[in-house]
């Protein structure tokens, strides 16, 4: 009996010893290079090995007869090869094909400036937006340091590649924001309303953007709000300019959160200390608050609701250029409400849905007055250009929009996206002036459907065609806008991208009060991008041609559209270099833009380079962080060649032929991370225009007063202060319950 068992054991043992085979071979990638680290094994057994540095493998196995040899490796398609194992040795060479994934594929959106912390390699990080000197944590001010975005000091907005501010749209979670910037006083640019900390992703496309978006002849800035805050916390900010407080509460399961914040801004103290170029009748004062609620659904979806309300007022007085001794007073009060609720949800394995509903309400109360030396209102003078200055306007803008996008993913990175959106806009204004009294109301319903698809022909070649159809009820016009993007990887981390697209935009509603029968404005983009990008370096060159096929022309006073035969072009070359590695703990970027642009639009008498385009612009942004001291010092330098300005002393042949002096600004900011009252605190100090360089954005001219040379007198348009300073302390207390629990249990 035991002998039998013993024999049996012997039999089995000897069987396994004597039938051992050696499998070996080499594994190559589809580019012919040997692959080390590939897992090669026989299916349904543990027998296998990984390839060595020469791509060679070798392992013994007891299995004989037909079997399946499997080779698997990160980033490659797993292959299975049937083999017949007999004899002592078997040689099998294998070739693996690289899988198309985000890790190795060509990037379709190479022409854009993305700031994200999640993606593998982006040009900017979210931290960059808040630590760029001179930008004071304003998203669009930071973007003015990348190529293609013109530094314009006297007006807010993104002026992109020879386009006006109206040609760029800002989008939050898919919904266009109607009044992204605070209401401003003519000649003084205002900031954006939204803190960069609200967003986890920022993508700025300076042209040739996706068919998913429209109504912007030049560019879109796409902001994606934070999904769920990292933890519960309380925040307090203190500065001579404002105080703010807020909290975020995240539940223990990290499935939902809510929060609120409030800020009070008052620049009285600041304007008393820092010399101002204007006579301040009302220093900017504002209240604003917001509420948010977010929850995660079971299947990785997220619902986000955000509501913000703000009220601001400010006013200045400045000497009238059309009289001696009189002043122009301008006061603006603004109330703004913005609501945005969005929903993202995956519908099964390959389908995703995103939707957004947003509503905005904006009310500007503008009072412009002609004032005497005692700041009293001056009665009607009978002189047109003087009486023109006195008016009151109440302007209410409302916008309601809804958008749905569905995405279908295919194998690899191939995808199809389609959807539609509808916007309802209503502008109601009431004007009181010496010449005109009465309401001016206008409304528009705009609808669009769109589709685009990502087609990866190989990991090195991707094509994204898109199509967008739009309709405006106000003008009764429809359009069809094709877009296309072709990207080709020419070497590891190096690629070429060509973007093409037709972009339409409804003429600004304010010009359509009377005659509405105008077609969409239109611009065609052709952009070639070369990019070398890895986590340490970015080098990008872009060449573009933007043809304005149709632009609105207005009457002399620029009040009403008269025809749509305006046109223009913008051509240029842009360079961007970013280096995070060469100097340890130090990173910097350099950008340069050259532009050649002319346009005939609005009340331009001839085709000319517009006031918002400088031929040459450049920025250097430096950032250094000392980890041991928790101290960051940032420096930026911006220089642009002179911009055109309107000089009424010249004839229409010389329209906009004058140039301002070049603009220069050195800015510095310091952030120091420390602990104050047990909080994680950041102390921020910033100083703009460190060397007090004379900055002139343009000139405003008198309509009727001449100097000794019989020329209309003028005044330079300058920033409100020679230098601007900011000091602030931001504290946050994390109230992470789980952390408390641990501490209690220790």
């Amino acid at each position: 009996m035991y002998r039998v068992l013993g024999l049996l054991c012997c039999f089995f043992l000897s069987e396994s010893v004597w039938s051992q085979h050696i499998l070996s071979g080499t594994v190559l990638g589809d580019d012919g290079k040997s692959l080390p680290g590939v897992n090669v094994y026989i299916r349904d057994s543990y027998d296998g090995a990984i390839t060595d540095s020469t791509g060679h493998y070798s392992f013994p196995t007891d299995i004989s007869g037909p079997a399946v040899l499997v080779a698997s490796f990160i980033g490659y398609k797993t292959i299975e090869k049937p083999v017949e194992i007999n004899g002592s040795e078997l040689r099998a060479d294998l070739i693996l094909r690289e899988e198309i994934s985000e890790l190795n594929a060509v990037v379709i959106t190479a022409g854009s400036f993305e700031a994200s912390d999640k993606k593998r390699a982006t040009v900017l990080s979210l931290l960059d937006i808040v630590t760029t000197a001179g930008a004071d944590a304003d998203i669009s001010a930071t973007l003015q340091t990348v190529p293609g975005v013109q530094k314009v000091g006297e007006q807010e907005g993104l002026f992109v590649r020879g386009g006006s501010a109206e040609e760029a749209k800002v989008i939050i979670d898919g919904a266009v924001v109607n009044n992204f910037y605070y209401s401003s006083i003519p000649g003084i640019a205002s900031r954006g309303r939204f803190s960069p900390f609200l967003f986890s992703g920022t993508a700025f496309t300076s042209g040739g953007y996706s068919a998913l978006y429209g109504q912007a002849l030049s560019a879109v800035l796409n902001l994606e709000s934070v999904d769920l805050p990292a933890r519960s916390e309380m925040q307090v900010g203190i500065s001579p300019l404002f105080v703010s407080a807020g909290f975020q509460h995240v539940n223990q399961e990290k499935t939902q959160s809510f929060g609120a914040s409030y800020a009070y801004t008052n620049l009285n103290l600041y304007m008393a200390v820092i010399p101002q170029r204007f006579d301040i009748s009302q220093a900017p004062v504002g209240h604003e608050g917001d509420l948010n609620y977010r929850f995660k659904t079971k299947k990785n979806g997220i619902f986000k609701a955000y509501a913000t309300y703000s009220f601001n007022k400010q006013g200045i007085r400045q000497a009238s250029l059309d009289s001696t001794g009189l002043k122009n007073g301008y006061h603006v009060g603004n109330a703004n409400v913005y609501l945005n609720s969005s929903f993202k949800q995956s519908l099964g394995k390959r389908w995703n849905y995103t939707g957004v509903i947003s509503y905005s309400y904006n009310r500007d109360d503008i009072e412009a007055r002609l004032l005497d030396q005692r700041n009293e209102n001056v009665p009607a003078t009978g002189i047109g250009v003087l009486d023109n200055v006195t008016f009151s306007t109440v302007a209410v803008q409302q916008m309601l929009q809804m958008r749905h996008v569905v995405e279908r993913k295919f194998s690899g990175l191939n995808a199809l996206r389609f959807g539609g959106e509808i916007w309802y806009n209503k502008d109601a204004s009431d004007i009181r002036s010496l010449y005109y009294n009465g309401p001016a109301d206008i409304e528009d319903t705009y609808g669009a459907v769109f589709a685009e698809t990502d087609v990866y022909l190989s990991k090195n070649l991707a094509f994204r065609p898109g199509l967008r159809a739009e309709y405006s009820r106000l003008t009764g016009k429809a359009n069809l806008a094709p877009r296309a993007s072709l990207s080709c990887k020419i070497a590891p981390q190096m690629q070429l991208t060509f973007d093409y697209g037709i972009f339409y935009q409804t003429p600004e509603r304010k010009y359509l009060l009377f005659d509405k029968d105008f077609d969409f404005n239109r611009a065609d983009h052709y952009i070639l991008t070369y990019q070398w990008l890895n986590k340490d370096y970015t080098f990008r060159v872009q060449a573009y041609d933007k043809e304005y096929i149709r632009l609105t022309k207005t009457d002399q006073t620029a009040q009403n559209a008269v025809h749509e035969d305006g046109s223009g072009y913008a051509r240029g070359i842009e360079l961007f270099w970013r280096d995070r590695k060469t100097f340890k703990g130090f990173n910097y970027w350099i950008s340069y833009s050259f532009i050649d642009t002319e346009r005939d639009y609005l009340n331009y008498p001839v085709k000319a380079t517009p006031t918002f385009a400088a031929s040459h612009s450049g920025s250097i942004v430096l950032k250094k962080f000392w980890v041991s001291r928790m101290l960051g010092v940032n420096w930026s330098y911006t220089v642009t060649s002179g911009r055109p300005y309107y000089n009424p002393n010249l004839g229409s042949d010389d329209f906009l032929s004058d140039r301002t002096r070049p603009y220069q600004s050195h800015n510095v900011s310091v952030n120091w991370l420390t602990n104050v009252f047990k909080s994680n605190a950041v102390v921020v100090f910033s100083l703009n225009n460190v060397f007090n360089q004379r900055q002139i954005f343009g000139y405003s001219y008198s309509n009727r007063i001449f100097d000794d040379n019989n020329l209309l007198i003028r005044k330079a348009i300058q920033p409100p202060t020679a230098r601007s300073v900011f000091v602030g302390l931001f504290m946050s207390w994390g109230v992470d319950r789980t952390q408390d629990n641990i501490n209690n249990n220790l």
Partner: protein
Amino acid sequence: MKNVLLLIALLASSALSAQTGYEKAMTKGLQMVKDAQTAQDMNAASAFFERIAVTEKNNWLPYYYAAWTQILAGYMDEKADKDKVAHKANELISQADAFQPDNSEIYCLKQMSASLAMLVDPMTRWQTYGMEAATALDKAKKLDPSNPRPYLLEAQGLYYTPEQFGGGKAKAKVVYEKAIQMYGTFKPASPLHPSWGLEQAEEGLKNCME
């Protein structure tokens, strides 16, 4: 009779060898981990566990070890493409997760993988990957309050986080001590279930004392 006995013996031996086959392989894999000197050795262990995983099919443990060793290899090799390694590890983790949802040990791996990805660019990635890691750690603690490994990982995180950001040796020390105390009472479900970490905790504590 003889035939019946032979049959029983045959069945028994085949059943026995089938079971020990898996156990033997797993034990061998764990020995490979112990003996691993280089990232290449660790990768070999990972590949070995993956082979067991695809053969065993519905068992989470080999996937767990394949992912764990994958991540360890990522940490051992300074030149490794950490995004790629984390990507691979996440694939293995999601397999393990599918067979064994809501397992504290698997959430520990999620923390490790996110921390590895964070290393690519800590300054900018801590907000996203740092949060992912912290969330996974919380979940790991909640799912099995007796598991010492989440505390070991937390201590390691604290040790490498500057004091100004709420880390530092003093804080790490307390958590290391807690982890070591928990290792004293922790019983793995089987010899093949995760039980690693005591040595690292003791080593970490020693570093905190310096």
